[in-house]
C-alpha cells in the first residue's frame, strides 16, 4: 500500500470544481514533483493531505488513514508526521528563527530546553542555517525564510514533507541550494516528498516521478524519462510551453 493515496478527489469552491477527480499515490521514500499551470489546484491538493481542506467527494489516505474522516487524535498523529513548507515560509514574525523552529517542540512536547536546543540546532544545521539562528524572519532573505520553514517542518522528525513552491521567487543559485536540500533530506532521512514546483528543469533532475495537473485532473504521472517522451497531448503542450525554461 502506498503511503499517500488520492482516490478520485473532487473539490469544489462556489460551484466550480478545482479538483475534478484526482487520483494518484506516492510510495514511501519517493519524491513526487507536481507541476502544472498556476491556479490548477496544486496547493489545494497539498492542503487536502493535512485536512486544511476536505474533499467534496473522494478519499485522501495517509498510511491507510482517511484524512478527512478520521478523529482528532489520528489527525494530530498524521499532522505530526507531515511537515508542510508554505509558499512564504509562514514564520511567526515576533520570534527568532531558532524560536520559530523550536515552536512545535515547545508547545507540543515535554522535551527539556536542552533537548529542544539540540534538536533545533540539528534541524538548522541540516538546512544550513545555523548562522541565522538568532535573526528575526524580517531580517533574513526569502530563501533563508524558506529554509527556516523547512527546518521547522522537519524538526519533529516528520517522514513526509510537502513543499509548496519552495523555490519560486528565488534566484537560481538559492533555488539550487533548496533543491539540493530536498534531495539530501530524502536520501539521508528517507523523507517522502511531494514538491509543487514551477521549475520543471530541476524537477526532471531530482524527481522520482512527475505529476502534471491540468484542469483539476491528473494529465500524466510518470518518471522523468517517460514524462519527457510522452505522447500525451497535455504533456506535449506543457513541455512546449515550458520549452524556454528547459535546457
Amino acid at each position, binding site marked *: 500500500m502506498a503511503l499517500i493515496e488520492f482516490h478520485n478527489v473532487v473539490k*469544489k*469552491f*462556489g*460551484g466550480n470544481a478545482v479538483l475534478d477527480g484526482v487520483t494518484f499515490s506516492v510510495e514511501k521514500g519517493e519524491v513526487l514533483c507536481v507541476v502544472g499551470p498556476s491556479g490548477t489546484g496544486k496547493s489545494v491538493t497539498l*492542503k487536502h493531505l*493535512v*485536512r*486544511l*481542506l*476536505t474533499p*467534496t467527494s473522494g478519499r485522501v489516505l495517509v498510511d491507510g488513514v482517511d484524512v478527512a474522516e478520521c478523529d482528532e487524535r489520528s489527525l*494530530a498523529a498524521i*499532522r*505530526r508526521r*507531515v511537515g*508542510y513548507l*508554505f*509558499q*512564504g515560509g*509562514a*514564520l*511567526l514574525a515576533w520570534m527568532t528563527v531558532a524560536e520559530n523552529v523550536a*515552536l*512545535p517542540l*515547545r*508547545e*507540543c512536547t515535554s522535551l527539556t530546553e536542552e533537548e529542544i536546543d539540540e534538536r533545533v540546532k540539528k534541524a538548522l544545521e541540516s538546512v544550513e542555517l545555523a548562522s541565522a539562528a538568532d535573526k528575526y524572519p524580517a531580517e533574513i532573505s526569502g530563501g533563508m525564510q524558506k529554509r527556516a*520553514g523547512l527546518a*521547522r517542518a522537519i524538526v*519533529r522528525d516528520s517522514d513526509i514533507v510537502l513543499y509548496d513552491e519552495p523555490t519560486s521567487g528565488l534566484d537560481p543559485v538559492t533555488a539550487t541550494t533548496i533543491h539540493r536540500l530536498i534531495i539530501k533530506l530524502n536520501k539521508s532521512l528517507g523523507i517522502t516528498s511531494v514538491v509543487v514546483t514551477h521549475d520543471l528543469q530541476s524537477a526532471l533532475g531530482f524527481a522520482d516521478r512527475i505529476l502534471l495537473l491540468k484542469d483539476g485532473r491528473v494529465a500524466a504521472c510518470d518518471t522523468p524519462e517517460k514524462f519527457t517522451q510522452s505522447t500525451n497531448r497535455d504533456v506535449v503542450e506543457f513541455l512546449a510551453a515550458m520549452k524556454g525554461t528547459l535546457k
Partner: protein
Amino acid sequence: MTVVREPIWDDAPSSRAQGVVRHFLKFLASLGWAARIMTESLAAFPSVAVRRNGRSDLMRQLYVTGIRTLPVMTVVSMFMGMILALQVGLELRRFNQEIYLGAAVMISLIREMGPFSCGMCLAACVGSAIAAELGTMKVNDEIAALEIMSIPPLRFLAAPRVMALVLMAPLLAFYCCVVGAIGGGVVGATQLGVDFEQYMASAMSIAEIKDLYVGLLKATVFGLVIGTVSVSEGLGTTMGATGVGKSTQRSVIVSFLLILIFGYMITRICYR
C-alpha cells in the same frame, strides 16, 4: 477546534432566494463562530499560565493593552471629563448649583463615560491591531502552519490577547474615571469658579460602591467583546491584504456597536 474554515457551500446558489437565505445563514454562522471563539478562548485561560512561554506572552499583551494605550486613554478621558464639566457646569450655574458639579461629573464618568471611553480606545488601539495582526498571519498561512503543528491558534494566540483585554479593561476604565474627574475639576476651578476641594468632596460623596462595580463590570464585558470580535474577524480573514483591511475595519465597527449595545443593556439590567 480548527480555525481554518472553508466556505460552507461547495456550489453557487441556484436562485436569488437561496442566495438571500444563505446570506442570513452565514450571518448566523458568524455569530456561532464568534461564540465558539469566545468560549474556547475563555476555556484556554488556564493554559496561559501552564504553557511554556504562556506567561511571557501574557505579559507582552498586558503591556500592549495596558501601558501602550495610556497616552490615548489619558487624553481622551481628560477631555471627556472636561467636556462633561463644562456642559453640566454651565447648566448648573444658571441655577447656582455649582457645588454639585463634582457629583454630576463623577456619576456620569463612573457609570458610563469612563468604561465607554476606555472601551472605545481599546477597540480602536488594541482591537484593530489584533485583527490586523491575526488577519495578516491568516493570509500568510501562519495560522494554517500553527494548525498543522497541532498548536491550537486559539490557545496560542487568542487566549493571551483576550485575557489581557479582560484584565486590563476594568483597570483602564478606573484610570479613565480618575483622569476624567481631575480634568473636570480643573475646568471647574478655572472656568466655572468651583473650588477644587469642594468639587472633589462633592464627587466623593456621590460615588457609590455599586456604581463602581457596575462600571467595572461594563468595562470587563467590553474587554471580552473587543477581544472576541477582533480575534474572530482576524482569524476569519480571507483574500490577502484587502481582506486584512476589511477585517480590521469591521472589527472596529462591530466593537463600537456592541460596546454601545452592551453598555445600554448592562445599565438597563443593573439600574431599574
